[in-house]
């Protein structure tokens, strides 16, 4: 393909393009606009999606499998078996980890309660989060000061707490929370740690959607189940398994489902929530937007192609005489065809390259305006470029074919 003859042809087309800058420029303009809008559209939707992915990472990652209780008695009296069921417990978490240590990185447990929370400065009714296992890693919390809960704290339900920034500010406005004592329900609890503030804004000037996470008052889950809310079985609100790899979740969840069903006396009183699968479903909604971008991109490149054909028609008179001259001095029809096709491809390549640059600028401006970081997928570049080339090729076929079929005499006499 890259023989000397081809190089010669490309060089010749390049010279002809430079000789006819107006014609080539107008032809390229359609390609430039089309490519820029395809690339811009893709990049903006990719950037949005990338931002959504970041949100999930900040929430502790996509590689999670949630287990939550699911009421199976909707109506009437529960059967004896249902009544005897033990529900979701810490046992389920440890059994789940033991099921496949290769793929499970850890499990967190949550048991919430509502309690009256008092300090020297405030007295409010609050949600209190009982946490256990690998809660911090799974949910994306980090300790700023103090310490996390020790294994003993979690095992024995020690009266200790870690506060989010908002909770710390409300109950200890002078910044002396660490080491202080507060009362949760009737229990005096010592503050052993403080969480980092959590901030995530989808766009620059939007609200912090993690605001409520800073309200957290975390105590050991065992403390909640023993002293505040719960029952003899120490049931939990949620167990989350953190996986080592997103791809094994589906397989693991099958095994886990079997295990839990056995643990729960054959009652399907739980539901599994694969976070990655939920994310994929969300993404497939995003595909609709992608399709719109595709269509608008294809339409604008199509429009560019029609502009091209128009310009070809407008310069037809000039072109036909040119073709006549070339034929008279010995250019065969297929050489004329190749010349026009080469020129069209060259216009497309140049136009598409400029279009890619324009598309980058366009995407920067838009993402800058809505305040999200720009992310561009190399695949979008390839797609936009290929599309422009394909359309450039298709739209040149007809004029090139027509020109190649001219008889030299007619072409020379064409007025």
């Amino acid at each position: 393909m890259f023989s000397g003859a081809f190089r010669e042809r490309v060089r010749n087309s390049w010279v002809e393009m430079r000789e006819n800058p107006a014609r080539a420029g107008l032809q390229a303009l359609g390609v430039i606009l089309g490519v820029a809008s395809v690339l811009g559209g893709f990049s903006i939707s990719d950037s949005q999606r990338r931002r959504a992915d970041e949100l999930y990472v900040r929430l502790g990652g996509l590689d999670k499998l949630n287990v939550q209780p699911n009421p199976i008695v909707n109506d009437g009296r529960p059967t004896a078996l249902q009544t005897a069921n033990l529900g979701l417990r810490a046992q389920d978490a440890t059994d789940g980890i033991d099921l496949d240590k290769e793929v499970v990185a850890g499990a967190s447990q949550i048991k919430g309660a509502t309690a009256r929370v008092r300090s020297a400065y405030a007295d409010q009714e609050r949600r209190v989060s009982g946490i256990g296992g690998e809660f911090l890693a799974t949910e994306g919390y980090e300790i700023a000061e103090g310490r996390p809960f020790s294994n003993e704290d979690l095992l024995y339900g020690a009266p200790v707490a870690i506060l989010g920034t908002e909770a710390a500010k409300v109950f200890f406005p002078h910044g002396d929370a660490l080491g202080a004592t507060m009362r949760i329900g009737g229990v005096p609890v010592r503050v052993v740690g403080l969480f980092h503030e959590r901030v995530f804004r989808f766009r620059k000037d939007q609200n912090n959607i993690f605001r409520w996470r800073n309200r957290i008052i975390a105590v050991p889950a065992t403390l909640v189940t023993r002293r505040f809310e719960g029952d003899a079985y120490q049931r939990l609100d949620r167990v989350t398994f953190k996986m080592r790899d997103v791809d094994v979740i589906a397989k693991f969840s099958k095994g886990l489902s079997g295990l839990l069903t056995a643990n729960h006396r054959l009652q399907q009183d739980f539901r599994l929530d694969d976070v990655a699968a939920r994310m994929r479903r969300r993404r497939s909604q995003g595909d609709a937007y992608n399709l719109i971008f595709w269509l608008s991109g294809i339409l604008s490149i199509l429009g560019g192609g029609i502009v091209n054909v128009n310009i070809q028609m407008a310069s037809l008179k000039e072109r036909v005489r040119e073709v006549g001259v070339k034929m008279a001095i010995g250019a065969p029809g297929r050489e004329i065809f190749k010349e026009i096709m080469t020129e069209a491809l060259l216009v497309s390549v140049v136009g598409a390259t400029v279009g890619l640059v324009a598309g980058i600028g366009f995407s920067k401006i838009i993402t800058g305006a809505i305040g999200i970081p720009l992310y561009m997928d190399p695949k979008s570049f390839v797609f936009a470029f290929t599309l422009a080339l394909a359309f450039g090729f298709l739209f040149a076929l007809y004029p090139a074919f027509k020109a190649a079929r001219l008889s030299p005499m007619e072409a020379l006499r064409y007025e």
Partner: protein
Amino acid sequence: MRPIIETRGLTKTFGNNGVAVHALRGIDLTVDQGEFLALIGPSGSGKSTLMAILGCLDKPTTGSYVFDGNRVDGLSNPELARIRNQKIGFVFQLYNLLPKASVVRNVELPMLYAGVRRKERRRRALELLERVGIPEKAKSLPSALSGGQRQRVAVARALANNPAMLLADEPTGALDSKTGHEVLELFSELHRQGNTIVIVTHDLSIAALASRQVEIHDGRVASESKVA
């Protein structure tokens, strides 16, 4: 001497919705190598049609045409293009240069289609411009040239591939008499150098410069005269 052109019973009929127009009605013509021939005749006589066929721009309806030793009347379009490229040099009344291409590139063009390498093309094109007397115009656009200079460019282009024959169609038709004369001088000079030249004209004073005149009338050879 070997004939460069030999036609027998050449006819050309244009069919227009059942109305047949007989442009040529049987032309027998022989042109020897190194001849300077003038094809004369009034407009509508068929001389332009004859020129197109002799120049392999068109095909005859019937009859045989042997050009430079080969039958060409039945050849395909690409084969005819190859003959035009390698063996015939055209000079047209309205120059027919590519308006946006520089003078030197116009001269290079036939060599491009002949597959001559770039450097060689450039070298030979400049040499030809020297030969037709306008080496300083190589980088100009045709629009910056006078009519006489443009026709010189056209002659240089026609000579690019060392053709067996130069075919000129009213080469002075668009020029004033002085520049026209200069261009004709160029043709005479080329003839003296051994080139075969066929000029199509309706101007008898131009035809007088040729070594032989063939008059076409109503698609037939009406008369021939030879200057000693």
